């Protein structure tokens, strides 16, 4: 079965520092991986996806994610964090008829 895991419930970084939000996956076949962000009292917003090709995927708001097949990981990264990046981040894997989400990681960026 397709699944993803987010090992960290909470990530804290200082504004201006690089951030990483971790995700590992377990899939049968080729992985199709996604990152979504949820701001308070809002729905899920699509950030980026990995389908095939380059292992470094660029997405919205300056985020990027690195696909690593040997480590079965798809970590979300940003070179310089902003306070406004504080939100709940979900990694997801696409199955044929639905999308399976990780438990979420709460990112807090402090000024």
């Amino acid at each position: 079965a397709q699944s993803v895991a987010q090992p960290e419930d909470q990530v804290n970084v200082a504004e201006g520092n690089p951030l990483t939000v971790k995700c590992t996956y377990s899939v049968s076949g080729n992985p199709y991986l996604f990152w979504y962000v949820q701001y308070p009292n809002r729905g899920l917003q699509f950030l980026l996806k990995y389908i095939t090709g380059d292992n470094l995927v660029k997405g919205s708001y300056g985020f990027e994610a690195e696909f690593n097949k040997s480590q079965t990981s798809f970590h979300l990264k940003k070179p310089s964090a902003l306070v406004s990046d504080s939100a709940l981040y979900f990694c997801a894997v696409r199955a044929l008829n639905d999308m399976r989400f990780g438990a979420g990681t709460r990112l807090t960026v402090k000024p």
Partner: protein
Amino acid sequence: EPEVTQTPSHQVTQMGQEVILRCVPISNHLYFYWYRQILGQKVEFLVSFYNNEISEKSEIFDDQFSVERPDGSNFTLKIRSTKLEDSAMYFCASSPTGGKFTEAFFGQGTRLTVV
């Protein structure tokens, strides 16, 4: 930019009552989904819908739940007899295709509170 819209934003209902959550997916999308999120926790898949029928459902989606596309634009989730544990944020989503490489677009959610 087209978006998925959900109504109402907040619904309070008494235990045992029926509720209908409404969604208008993006107009040219063909695949529709309902997810729920209990109090900022994991987003859980409920059901997917294509070509006027359920294509997949999770173990959460029992006989108390049903979905319908009553016309060309709306997509509804009905809970027949609500329980306290149905209290959650319910998200509707849609995608243009059902392929594995297609992201889903989510609505803002309906917060259901069962009292």
